[in-house]
């Protein structure tokens, strides 16, 4: 069953330098309980997309167009109060940096209880404390009865991220958005946090949108992956397909830029040549064409026409190359 349906999402920021077109025509669905990853280079619009789902795009001059249907209700058409009641209850967020995500002036117990109390007015203090204790226990904070009255700065980064997760899950949301939840953490802690998210998801049955740079993370806990480039989705596929038969030159580049994940053999590390385009002055046609090794084989079409997402094998890809070439991207050139 479709939980979330994003249709033709556009997000533009007015800045002194001109309009930053951070997201351009992104569409995707997330089914209830499904785990979807969004990957892409820095600045590709992953966070902006995620933030628009709860209308959390701040900034002086933001324009959001399109439709974001959550259980059939358009988030973009809701009143302030309606969005507020969705935030934290139906859709919860985990941000990147746990060191700054918690309010330094209140105890962690208070902050967990608060997240519950906002959406369940009239809950007694005693009940709230029970709920906070229970949450701390579930996310693996040792000695919760003692820790509940401590302040965020008394916890390590990994522990704080667990608390952020506890806050996110206290209302059993239908959708959990995790924007690079492990990037700011110690490598040793990263795996634990991911495992915790996976475990919590299994328990609550929430759908998860996981934003990450780390393809290893994608392989580990998600079912489907969306690759973003310059504010567009360029490929959408099951994780298995994306890794075995990427159907977009950019995805192929991403895969090449990390060590091989499922074999012992170390592939040569190469990053995608060139830099991401300016979102104020986007290249014509396919935004990837200045960096794409295949563009010249298509006689200028890449510079003229923006490729739309279409079905290629079992995946969806936004590239002008013919289907057979897209399906053979890895084989032919590696």
């Amino acid at each position, binding site marked *: 069953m479709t939980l979330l349906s994003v249709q033709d999402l556009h997000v533009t920021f007015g800045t002194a330098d001109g309009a930053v077109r951070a997201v351009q025509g992104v569409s995707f669905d997330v089914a209830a309980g499904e785990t979807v990853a969004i990957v892409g280079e820095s600045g590709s619009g992953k966070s902006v997309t995620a933030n628009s789902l*709860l209308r*959390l795009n*701040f900034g*002086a001059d933001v324009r959001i167009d399109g439709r974001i249907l959550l259980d059939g209700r358009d988030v973009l058409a809701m009143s302030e109060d309606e969005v*507020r*009641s*969705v*935030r*934290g*209850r139906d859709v*919860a*967020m985990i*941000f990147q*940096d746990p060191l*700054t*995500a*918690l*309010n*330094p*002036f*209140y105890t962690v117990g208070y902050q967990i209880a*608060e*997240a519950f109390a*906002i*959406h369940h007015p009239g809950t007694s203090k005693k009940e709230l404390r029970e709920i906070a204790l229970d949450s701390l226990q579930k996310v693996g904070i040792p000695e919760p009865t003692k820790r509940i009255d401590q*302040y965020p*700065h008394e916890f390590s980064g990994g522990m704080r991220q667990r608390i*952020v997760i506890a*806050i996110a899950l206290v209302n059993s949301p239908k959708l959990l958005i995790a924007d690079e939840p492990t990037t700011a953490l110690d490598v040793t802690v990263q795996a634990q946090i991911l495992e915790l998210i996976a475990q919590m998801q299994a328990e609550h049955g929430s759908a998860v949108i996981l934003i990450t740079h780390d393809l290893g993370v994608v392989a580990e806990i998600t079912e489907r992956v969306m690759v973003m480039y310059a504010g567009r989705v360029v490929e959408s596929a099951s994780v298995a397909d994306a890794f075995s038969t990427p159907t977009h030159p950019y995805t192929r580049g991403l895969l090449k830029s990390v060590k091989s994940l499922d074999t012992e053999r170390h592939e040569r590390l190469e990053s995608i040549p060139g830099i991401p385009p300016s979102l104020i002055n986007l290249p014509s046609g396919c935004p990837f064409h200045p960096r794409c090794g295949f563009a010249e084989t298509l006689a200028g079409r890449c510079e003229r026409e923006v490729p739309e997402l279409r079905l290629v094998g079992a995946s969806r890809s936004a590239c002008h190359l013919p289907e057979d070439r897209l399906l053979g991207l890895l084989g032919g050139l590696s």
Partner: protein
Amino acid sequence: MIYFVLRRSIFAVVLLLIVSAFTFWIFSALPSDPAALTCGKNCRPEVIEANRERLGYDKPLVEQYGAYMKGIFTGRTYGEEGSSIHCPAPSLGYSYDRHECVTSLIASTLPVTASIALGAFVLWMGIGVGLGTLAALKRGKWQDRVATAFSVIGVSLPTFFLGLIFIMVFVIWTGLLPFPRYTGITDNPVEWFMALLLPWFVLAIISAATYVRMTRNGILEVMNEEFVRLGIAKGLPRRRLIVRYVLRAALVPIVTIAGLDFAFLLGGALVTESIFNLPGLGKLTLAAVVNSDLPILVATTMVAAVFIVVANTVVDILYGYLDPRVRVK
């Protein structure tokens, strides 16, 4: 926490000792001879020397300092039996110019300055924080522009100028207020209030200007903090978010600065007191400067230093209460 308070207090006392010694040393190093200033221009040298001995200026500096500090606790008697002058504890010296114990001079002027400072402080915090908050919440709207204009004008207005304008407008032209003449609050609260109204506003407007900007910028900065974004993502109602997340964080540094500003004002509002003819510490100091009345200068400097050191300590301790991150267990 008690340990923290204790440690800070001991530190404050040590700091005060150092400051007082330094003040003493600085003023004694001035080229003017305090003994020579005890009598007029055509004074005979014998009188000067007699006075020097009487006031203790013939002793080595360290001894003078010792006697001064002792005087603070036990009081001090100048001269021999018969023609001696006694200043009871806490004695801060004797003004040969005014023929009065400095302590009693300060005791009579401090309430005036304290009245000015207290009222101005309440007003400026109200205006500064209130207007600053409004400006931040209505960023870019007309409220913001009004607040910004207020703060720019306030910062650039000299105190004496604003004071004179106020007197012109409210006293001379419209006659809404009588010309300020200070009356003790216990003598006549209404007159006390009327006399202080203008100085309060002058000081408040000028200080509030800075606070409007600090509050506005502080709030806008905090609003970009990740924890505020998480607060919004939690679904917090706007009011709760503003009070518990934004203001709470933005006001902590402002409270700190406000404490020090208040202490500074308690040391004497020189210009304001002069313009509005208020017999406070500032006027006392100013007169002492004009008359080279060293004992008064030493004492007012020390009193001001005490206020600032005490405020610093209080603010530090308060900070510990306000911000759990610096709270010591």
